[in-house]
């Protein structure tokens, strides 16, 4: 059968769209380039919102990208079940779009953080995490200025109670995220936001591990079995 087609949206200021496309290819799917200014998702089976600084992160991270022409189509498709993974800036865009609750604020330490980060997978049932085991620890890079996850207490309790915290930071919380949250998902589990960068940990030559590949192989396996 044909390979699964995974779209990667490029915004002005996106940085990691090519790395995301490469990770998709290594996982066995066909990466499809999507442009923020179009109104066409090109019939893809899933979408990755890559890292970077869309629209310069002017105003707030992700605040202007949320209103990109293609985001209208993406929000509707995500509500209809299309798997979407937002990485770093993509996570910020998903929060600003209200596809995910809460918001991402400047790191508590105010510095840009760039390090190999240990995480624990808390939910291995989302569209993007089935290749992991619950409780599995991963080491993948994190690099952000606005990575501090914040939400009100009721939202945090709801996320924890319903398994919607996808990953937590282990050993060290790099940005002051509440409850050590590194990633969350929507109620249906098809939309996942993650602050660390799994697309930078897909080959031992260029990453600290290959621990990130599982996010991409998870979606490939799901689409092949769908």
């Amino acid at each position, binding site marked *: 059968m044909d390979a699964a087609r995974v779209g990667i949206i490029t915004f002005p200021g996106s940085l990691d769209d090519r790395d995301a496309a490469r990770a998709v290819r290594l996982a066995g799917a066909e990466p499809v380039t999507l442009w923020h200014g179009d109104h066409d998702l090109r019939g893809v089976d899933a979408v990755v919102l890559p890292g970077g600084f869309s629209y310069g992160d002017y105003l707030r991270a992700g605040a202007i990208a949320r209103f990109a022409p293609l985001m209208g189509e993406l929000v509707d498709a995500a509500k209809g079940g299309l798997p979407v993974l937002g990485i770093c800036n993509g996570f910020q865009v998903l929060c600003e779009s209200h596809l995910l609750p809460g918001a991402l*604020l400047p790191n508590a330490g*105010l510095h840009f953080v760039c390090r190999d980060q240990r995480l624990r997978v808390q939910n291995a049932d989302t569209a993007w995490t089935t290749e992991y085991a619950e409780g599995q620890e991963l080491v993948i890079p994190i690099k952000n200025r606005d990575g501090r996850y914040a939400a009100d207490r009721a939202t945090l309790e709801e996320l924890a109670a319903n398994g919607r915290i996808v990953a937590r930071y282990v050993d060290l919380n790099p940005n002051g995220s509440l409850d050590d949250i590194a990633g969350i998902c929507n109620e249906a589990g098809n939309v996942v936001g993650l602050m660390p960068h799994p697309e930078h940990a897909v080959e031992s030559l260029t990453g600290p591990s290959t621990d990130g590949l599982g996010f991409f192989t998870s979606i490939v396996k799901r689409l092949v079995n769908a």
Partner: protein
Amino acid sequence: MARVVVDVMLKPEILDPQGQAIARKLPQLGYEGVASVRQGKRFELELDGPADEAALDRARKIAETLLANPVIENYEVRVL
């Protein structure tokens, strides 16, 4: 032309490390007794038409849509 100010502030329960960094510097500059600093954003909008309640309503809608993120921020509008 109506000039409308939109002040956007982080909600009180949200940590503001920028404000804290500013507050920490003040005693070194000789300013004692500043219990806390919170940093916000001020937008000045120039709107066509008179500075009336309708202009403030437009500014509120702009604030809710784009200028503020109601998940983490509060905003106030007033005519300048």
